[in-house]
């Protein structure tokens, strides 16, 4: 061994450290990947060494490689090893690596629980600090649950350094384990008033994060924060608090009113820009919340806008940016006060900084009105021309469209202008937003009936000049516009002046180079155009035009019939045949126009994007009910289809309704309408929506748009189109104004008349600007009885949703955090539990007094005992509950959730998972279950005799406890084997002490020995199999012992020694003799407990082992110090060498058939418990897993760490249980059976 370590060190000498690695990588620029892969090989070698320094160095290098993008998760276990080094240097490296590469699905995380717990309670504050920092990065729900209480304790640590870290990490714990929020909250609140500013700031930080997500639960803290705000001078804290108020005010307007004054003062007084900015922000939030009722805050608004203007005018780009950002918030509620700064904002559009330009654009969106829309858009169009870089230009483009289309085209007074803007935008090179422009064109043309003629004319021109658009860059998105153009020309072809020409344009050979879906629209709409041509020529004697048209179709369509695109091909060949047939009819002079037109008859209406979602569910239809029998649980492969479904969903959920085949929609609607008409049970739509379903003959019922003839449809050339419209619009407005004035003068007393437009008298406000068209914006179609809006649903996966917890309710019994037993002393301080202790105390005055009599110790001692007794009392209560729970759960893990309300949530869930683990057991070495010999309470002091009657009861409890321990264990330590024993023998003063905390289903500890100075609790030792996973090698047993100082003096120089047997040896450091004790690496101040681990090697596992040991220590008082010793016995049972291993029934059968196994059997009489309880007990105590269970008969399996198979057949009838067992090692089997027997004899 010594040689091995030395050899490791020698290798180590030549190893690279981090610096060498970095240097090496820098020197291998040309073959970096190759160099790194050799380095990784070296690291793998280093990780195999026993020397922890070598390992730490390797892990350190891995952390660097992780930064370069190399996956280092394969070394996760080594990282855990380095984390558990006792040296701070290595520990820090380990935790750093863990925090960089561990995440929730890293499975070794579950091995770290105990290590982290140990580090958290380390006497060295930097060990604790490092553990907290690391934990904050990789905390999982399991870790959060198991460590919540430890961290909560640290919130009251003496060192502020630890306190602030503990406070901060609580936020992460809350996120992962929301149940901890309520119990921990009172202490968190206390920390708001911590004397240390760092801790205070951390507490504010955490509460602000919490409150941001669920503000209403934190309203009650407002007065406290208000106090802090007025007293604190720390800008960080102030900023956080002010931000928090920003989140709270919308819920409580009264708070806002109170805030205005101090905030205004801060705005005036502070010199810190960051604070000023946040104040302004919160004042804005306050004003928004007040905006409804209180008009008197114009002064505050003015102040804010004024301050923001200063920020925007500042030369510091950061302030400018933030100023604009805050401005946009004011804009929402007080647009007028922002609009007066339009000049400034337009100026920002010219800024060289893109972020600032984008913010300014955002502001413009809110600043437009009917009056200035054209002007602003004109400015933006100029920017579009100037803009370099497509991203910004695209952004401008989307902004223009957003600005114009906002709130249902509210600000557009002249749609001809808008169409021409859209047409101009198509001339942009290389934009990605062709589809956006296209959808706008379609939307406007469909919904604004008055504009159709104009739109069709424009689109016809576009189609005619299609080559300009497609040009060289066919791939860019702009050709999408042609899709819209073709569809509009086809659908509204009755408005076309020269359909023949457009038809020709649509059938040009060049079209075949467009994307397939656009070609398809071309082909389909050429058919529509053809129908129009036929119709227009109907009745004409001269049929040349129609014949020309059909000839054109017949000539050009074959090109599309050959298209590679299915859709195009199909449509083209259909239409080609149709046209050929029509041509035949034409030659016979048959009138076909009407029939052809009928093909494309029908009105289209836009459908609201949410229409589908809002269809009400008919009464009596349960969409969640199964139609067929649900598939059985066993074949629950449904994970996969589920995943596929959710993955695909986003695609469907945002239908680009403009590109859905409108025809198809129409057809469906038609069909639906027919069906509804024929269905006597269908409830007809209300009159308003009835309109929507008008068939073709009813088109006249749709309000017809009057076209204002003052706007010529043709405009003189010269200026760009849109500019001409701006001019025309100006003129029109003037004319209207003049007209109005005239009218008003003339007919002052008369009622207004005119063309049905509403004019308000008085000076022209923006609302006065009448649109050029009486625009009938067809509203989007909604289903009948649409459900009320359901927009702002919160994302159900939001982790913060779980933290929406009422914090003002008093804590209930079942809400305490899980506590580990050896924390008892600290846990007592918890304010959460104090109350209950008091209750318990008052219920038990009698016992207390009887005890008092016998107490010879000091008063202080008595106090401690008292509390222990109370603890015990509490435990009684809990135990009963848990017993029921366990019984119920074994069989039906599913039912558990119902029980949570009664019982602490934790035990429930952990046992649930435990069941799952057993069932789904993995191949990894599973946990073994300990068997425990009940402590022989040997009261060696007379004063304890009176406690004896309790001891039997106590034993039972003990087992109970263990059962829970095991649950916990199994779940947590897949890799660990557990081992157990408890030999409380020497100087057990009093039965109660042995009892563990009530709540902690988590405790793994049992009493080892105790005297008036010290108490030793031994964890059901973890048995760590050889790290390489070779079960054949001897195995190590790790025993964790908690030392608790029970006296008033300082304990030091503790030495732990065990008398080795041939079979089991305590591992001692190199160089020490076989009888030397191990120095416990810490000292114990009064009342403190700490944990140490000792490693044993075990050779043969077929027999149970008992080891005698001694702990020596020095008790140091103020004036004297004495040497003391404490004897104990460590008991390793045989079942503790078993590992719960899953086994499938076929493998099990094979094993039994093999004939290598020796058999043995036992009978247990008078076992009075349900069969599933019995099985559960065997599983728990003896580490078996159930292979198969049929009625009152079950087969079970387990495996020893050295690979022995152990098979059981358990049968029960009446109160007799017979167990037939087979194992390849008869001695082991005999011992295991004995131990099983013992377990049941105790119940």
């Amino acid at each position, binding site marked *: 061994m010594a040689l091995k370590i*030395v050899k490791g*060190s*020698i*290798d180590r000498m*030549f*190893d*690279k*450290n*981090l610096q*060498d690695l*970095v*240097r090496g990588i*820098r*020197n*291998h620029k040309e073959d970096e990947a190759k160099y790194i892969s050799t380095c990784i090989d*070296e690291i793998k070698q280093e990780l195999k060494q026993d020397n922890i*320094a*070598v390992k*730490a*160095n390797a892990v*350190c290098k891995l*952390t*660097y490689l*992780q*930064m370069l*993008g*190399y*996956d280092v998760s394969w070394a996760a276990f080594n990282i855990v090893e380095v984390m558990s080094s006792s040296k*701070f*240097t290595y520990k*820090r490296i380990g935790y*750093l690596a863990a925090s960089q590469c561990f*995440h929730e699905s890293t499975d070794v995380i579950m091995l770290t629980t105990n290590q982290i717990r140990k580090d958290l309670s380390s006497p*060295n504050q*930097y060990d604790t600090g490092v553990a*907290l*920092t690391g934990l*904050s*990065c990789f905390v999982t729900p399991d870790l959060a649950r198991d460590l919540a209480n430890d961290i909560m304790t640290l919130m009251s640590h003496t060192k502020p*350094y630890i306190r*602030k870290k503990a406070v*901060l990490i609580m936020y992460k714990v809350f996120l992962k384990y929301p149940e901890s929020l309520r119990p921990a909250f009172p202490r968190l609140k206390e920390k708001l008033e911590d004397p240390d500013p760092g801790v205070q*700031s951390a507490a504010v*930080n955490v509460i*602000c*994060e919490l409150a*941001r997500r669920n503000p209403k639960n934190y309203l009650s803290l407002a007065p406290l924060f208000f106090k802090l705000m007025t007293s604190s001078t720390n800008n960080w804290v102030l*900023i956080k608090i002010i*931000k928090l108020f920003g989140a709270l005010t919308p819920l409580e307007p009264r708070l806002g009113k109170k805030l205005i004054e101090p905030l205004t003062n801060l705005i005036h007084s502070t010199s810190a820009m*960051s604070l000023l*900015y*946040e104040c302004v922000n919160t004042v804005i939030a306050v004003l928004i919340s007040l905006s409804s009722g209180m008009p008197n805050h114009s002064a505050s608004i003015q102040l804010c806008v004024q301050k923001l203007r200063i920020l925007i005018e500042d030369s510091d*780009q*950061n302030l400018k940016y*933030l100023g604009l950002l805050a401005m946009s918030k004011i804009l929402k509620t007080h647009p007028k006060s922002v609009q007066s700064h339009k000049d400034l904002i337009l100026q920002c559009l010219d800024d060289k*900084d*893109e*972020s*600032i330009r*984008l913010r300014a654009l955002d502001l413009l969106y809110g600043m437009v009105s009917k009056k200035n829309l054209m002007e602003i858009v004109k400015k933006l169009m100029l920017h579009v021309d100037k803009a370099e870089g497509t991203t910004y230009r695209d952004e401008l483009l989307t902004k223009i469209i957003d600005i114009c289309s906002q709130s249902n085209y509210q600000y557009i007074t002249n749609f001809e202008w808008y169409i021409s803007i859209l047409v101009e935008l198509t001339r942009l090179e290389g934009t990605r937003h062709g589809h956006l422009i296209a959808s706008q064109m379609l939307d406007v043309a469909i919904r604004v009936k008055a504009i159709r003629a104009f739109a069709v004319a424009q689109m016809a021109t576009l189609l005619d000049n299609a080559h300009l658009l497609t040009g060289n860059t066919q791939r860019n998105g702009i050709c999408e516009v042609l899709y819209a153009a073709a569809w509009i020309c086809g659908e509204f072809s009755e408005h076309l002046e020269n359909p023949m020409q457009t038809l020709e344009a649509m059938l040009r050979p060049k079209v075949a180079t467009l994307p397939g879906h656009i070609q398809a629209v071309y082909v389909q709409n050429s058919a529509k155009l053809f129908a129009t041509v036929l119709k227009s020529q109907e009745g004409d004697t001269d049929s040349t035009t129609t014949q020309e048209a059909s000839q054109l179709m017949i000539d050009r369509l074959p090109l599309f019939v050959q298209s590679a695109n299915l859709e195009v091909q199909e449509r083209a060949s259909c239409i080609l045949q149709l046209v050929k047939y029509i041509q035949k009819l034409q030659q016979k002079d048959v009138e076909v126009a009407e029939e052809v037109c009928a093909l494309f008859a029908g009105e289209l209406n836009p459908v609201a994007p949410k229409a589908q979602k809002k269809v009400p569910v008919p009464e009596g239809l349960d969409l969640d009910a199964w139609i067929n029998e649900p598939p059985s649980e066993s074949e629950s492969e449904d994970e996969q289809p589920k995943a596929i479904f959710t993955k695909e969903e986003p695609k469907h959920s945002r239908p680009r309704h403009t590109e859905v085949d409108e025809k198809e929609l129409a057809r469906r609607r038609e069909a639906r309408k027919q069906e509804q008409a024929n269905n006597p049970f269908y409830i007809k739509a209300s009159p308003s929506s009835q309109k929507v379903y008008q068939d073709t003959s009813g088109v006249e019922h749709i309000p017809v748009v009057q076209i204002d003839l003052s706007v010529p449809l043709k405009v003189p050339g010269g200026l760009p189109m849109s500019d001409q419209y701006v001019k025309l619009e100006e003129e029109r407005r003037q004319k209207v104004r003049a007209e109005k004035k005239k009218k008003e003068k003339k007919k002052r007393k008369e009622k207004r008349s005119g063309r049905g437009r509403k004019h308000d008298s008085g000076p022209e406000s923006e609302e006065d600007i009448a649109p050029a068209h009486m625009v009938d914006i067809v509203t989007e179609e909604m289903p009948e009885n649409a459900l009320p809006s359901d927009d702002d649903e919160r994302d159900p996966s939001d982790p913060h949703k779980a933290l929406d917890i009422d914090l003002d309710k008093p804590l209930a019994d079942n809400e305490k955090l899980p506590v580990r037993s050896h924390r008892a002393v600290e846990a007592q301080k918890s304010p959460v539990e104090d109350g209950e202790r008091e209750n318990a105390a008052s219920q038990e005055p009698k016992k207390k007094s009887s005890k008092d009599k016998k107490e010879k110790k000091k008063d202080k001692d008595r106090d401690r005992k008292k509390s222990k007794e109370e603890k015990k009392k509490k435990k009684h209560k809990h135990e009963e509950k848990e017993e029921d729970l366990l019984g119920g759960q074994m069989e039906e893990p599913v039912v558990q959730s119902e029980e949570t309300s009664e019982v602490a949530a934790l035990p429930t869930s952990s046992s649930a998972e435990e069941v799952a683990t057993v069932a789904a057991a993995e191949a990894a070495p599973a946990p073994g279950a300990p068997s425990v010999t009940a402590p022989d309470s040997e009261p060696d002091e007379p004063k304890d005799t009176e406690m004896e009657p309790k001891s039997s009861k106590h034993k039972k409890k003990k087992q109970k406890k263990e059962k829970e321990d095991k649950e916990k264990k199994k779940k947590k330590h897949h890799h660990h084997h557990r081992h157990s024993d408890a030999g409380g023998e020497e100087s057990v003063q009093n039965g109660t002490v042995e009892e563990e905390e009530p709540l902690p289903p988590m405790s793994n500890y049992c009493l080892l020995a105790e005297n008036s100075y010290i108490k030793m609790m031994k964890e059901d030792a973890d048995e760590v199999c050889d790290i390489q996973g070779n079960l054949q090698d001897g195995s190590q047993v790790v025993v964790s012992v908690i030392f608790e100082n029970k006296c008033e003096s300082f304990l030091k120089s503790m030495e732990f020694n065990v008398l080795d047997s041939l079979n089991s040896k305590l591992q001692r450091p190199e160089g020490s003799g076989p009888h030397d004790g191990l120095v416990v690496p810490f000292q114990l101040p009064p009342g403190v407990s700490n944990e140490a681990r000792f490693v044993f090697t075990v050779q043969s596992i077929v027999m149970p082992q008992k080891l005698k040991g001694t702990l020596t220590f020095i008790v140091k008082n103020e004036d004297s110090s004495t040497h003391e010793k404490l004897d104990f016995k460590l008991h390793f049972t045989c079942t503790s060498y078993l590992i719960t291993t899953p086994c499938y029934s076929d493998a099990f059968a094979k094993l039994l058939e093999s004939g290598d196994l020796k058999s043995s059997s036992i009978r247990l009489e008078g076992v009075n418990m349900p069969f599933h309880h019995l099985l559960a007990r065997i599983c728990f105590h003896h580490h078996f897993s159930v292979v198969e269970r049929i009625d009152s008969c079950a087969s079970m399996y387990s495996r020893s760490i050295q690979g022995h198979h152990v098979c059981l057949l358990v049968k029960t009838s009446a109160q007799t249980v017979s167990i037939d067992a087979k194992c390849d090692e008869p001695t082991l089997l005999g011992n295991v059976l004995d131990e099983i027997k013992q377990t049941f004899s105790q119940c």
Partner: protein
Amino acid sequence: MIKAILIFNNHGKPRLIRFYQYFAEDMQQQIIRETFHLVSKRDDNVCNFLEGGSLIGGSDYKLIYRHYATLYFVFCVDSSESELGILDLIQVFVETLDKCFENVCELDLIFHMDKVHYILQEVVMGGMVLETNMNEIVAQVEVQNRLEKSEGGLSAAPARAVSAVKNMNLPEIPRNINIGDINIKVPSLSPF
């Protein structure tokens, strides 16, 4: 909350990455590339806030960065953090580095990534601001460095090993000697 802290140089080479939310390694590299792409094309006299970054964040998140000589310090934060506050924090962090390394330069970060991490851990923890007082940060870092020194540090082990070799005559000569360091002086040599 701070979602990520990235330090990279003018060429986009990462010098320190610290994600407070899990991303797989390749995703982390993509994020670095994207962030570098966004940040590097900005002039030094434009504002230090940046929206976008499609990979990390979303609408609630901002990139706040500062450019010092050859290094970019980028913080990705959500709306609960004050923008100007984070800018200050970056300044505090860099000044702390400067104190701890004495005139910090890129090389310090390259060769002592671990130490930079340890300093950062005293400033930000789990995505939340832990300490903003530079003296306090420096003090804690120094105590921990002293603690490390008292344990002999990571480099103490080889020293002990050397003495162990001197005192011992091992018959076997270690086989896989890796003379990686020679390459540093003669970069053209291929590795053995």
